[in-house]
């Protein structure tokens, strides 16, 4: 009996001291949760993706961006056969090479654009090897632009780390045309740059609706702006989901959660990929951590929650086709990262 008690109490003591808080606050309530099961798309061994983070599909060409590549950052595949077609954006320090890529945007002509945050350049990539890419050096007043989207043929939308405004509009020469909106004010006074680091967000703009969506990586806040009317439509989760951080020597060190990692503003809905993993848990047990999120939060264009999809695996980025009701996700934890999901918005 005594031995039993000793074992029981030891177990109790160990369990109690091992517990940690999971910072996945329920800041958003969705009317329903729908489970989705993915279908793997097998890539041949010719291309090894280390950390695929962005995916786009246009005209049966699949564009996959790998942020920790050894050679090329962007790979093109024939989506029907998953045969590798070509690769773009070679890693390197030379003028035509890249120190990193943040996103892929494809314009109406089917041309591919990317952003190199480390070189502070937006680059128009040519698909043919002999063509020269066109580089737009961003104005030096912008600090570390980490995402971009196209407002129209000649203007880009960019967030950055200056923290004075939420976004800037830059022209095809990289000059700032104007700024818009503000980072939601914190409860305590904080440096603008640190605040901007903590509020680092991914963006998506729908030119047909004039709507810009921004999703925080280090918190659970979704901002919806009408760029045609220059108005805020809704900021969801500002009170309960604001990024948590500490200022360490003028840098924001995140202490809350990994929030969103991708967003898509469609014709009818806004889709945001949510992780919800706490940094506390990641630091303590990185071997248990799976990169990516299993939740796709769906809102209408006014910001009302519609539903959330619960995925069968963790993904880091997605491509949404509202018309075909399909989603392509990137499972970085798998050797076959490209996964297709079918959903029904009825």
């Amino acid at each position, binding site marked *: 009996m005594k031995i039993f008690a000793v074992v029981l109490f030891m177990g109790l003591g160990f369990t109690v*001291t091992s517990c940690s808080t999971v910072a996945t606050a329920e800041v958003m309530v969705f009317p329903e949760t729908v489970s989705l099961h993915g279908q793997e798309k097998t890539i041949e061994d010719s291309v090894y993706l280390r950390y695929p983070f962005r995916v786009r599909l246009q005209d049966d060409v699949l564009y996959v961006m790998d942020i920790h590549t050894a050679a090329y950052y962007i790979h093109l595949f024939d989506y029907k056969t998953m045969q590798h077609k070509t690769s773009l954006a070679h890693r390197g320090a030379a003028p035509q090479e890249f120190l990193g890529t943040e996103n892929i945007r494809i314009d109406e002509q089917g041309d591919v654009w990317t952003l190199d945050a480390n070189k502070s350049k937006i680059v128009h990539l040519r698909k043919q090897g002999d063509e020269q890419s066109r580089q737009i050096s961003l104005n030096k007043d912008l600090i570390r632009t980490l995402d971009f989207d196209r407002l129209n043929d000649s203007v880009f939308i960019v967030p950055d780390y200056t923290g004075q405004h939420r976004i800037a509009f830059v022209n095809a020469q990289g000059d700032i045309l104007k700024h818009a909106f503000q980072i939601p004010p914190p409860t305590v006074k904080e440096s603008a740059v640190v605040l901007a680091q903590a509020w680092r967000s991914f963006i998506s703009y729908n030119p047909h609706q004039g709507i810009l969506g921004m999703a925080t990586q280090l918190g659970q806040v979704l901002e919806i702006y009408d760029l045609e009317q220059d108005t805020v439509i809704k900021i969801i989760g500002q009170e309960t989901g604001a990024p948590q951080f500490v200022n360490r020597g003028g840098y*924001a060190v995140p202490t809350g959660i990994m929030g969103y990692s991708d967003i898509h503003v469609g014709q009818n809905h806004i889709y945001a990929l949510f992780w919800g993993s706490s940094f506390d848990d990641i630091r303590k047990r990185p071997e248990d951590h799976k990169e990516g999120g299993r939740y796709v939060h769906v809102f209408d264009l006014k910001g009302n929650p519609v539903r959330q999809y619960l995925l069968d695996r963790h993904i880091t980025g997605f491509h949404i086709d509202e018309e075909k009701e399909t989603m392509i996700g990137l499972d970085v934890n798998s050797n076959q990262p490209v996964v297709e999901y079918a959903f029904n918005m009825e």
Partner: protein
Amino acid sequence: MKKYLMLLTCCVAIGIAMNVSLQFRFDSDKSEITLGNIEALAQGESGSGNCWFRASVDCPYSGDKVLYVE
């Protein structure tokens, strides 16, 4: 009753000690851990702090994409 109370205190103390010991060992092994496709490298060490493992969080010290920042 007093005996049981003492025993309980001892057990909780042992539990705490075991957990601290495991966490200490784990921290010292950070650079050895492999996370599937995620490389276990400390990145962006600076006077202010460190960034750990290659992943998708922007390291404010170096600009690398990492798992977490300290």
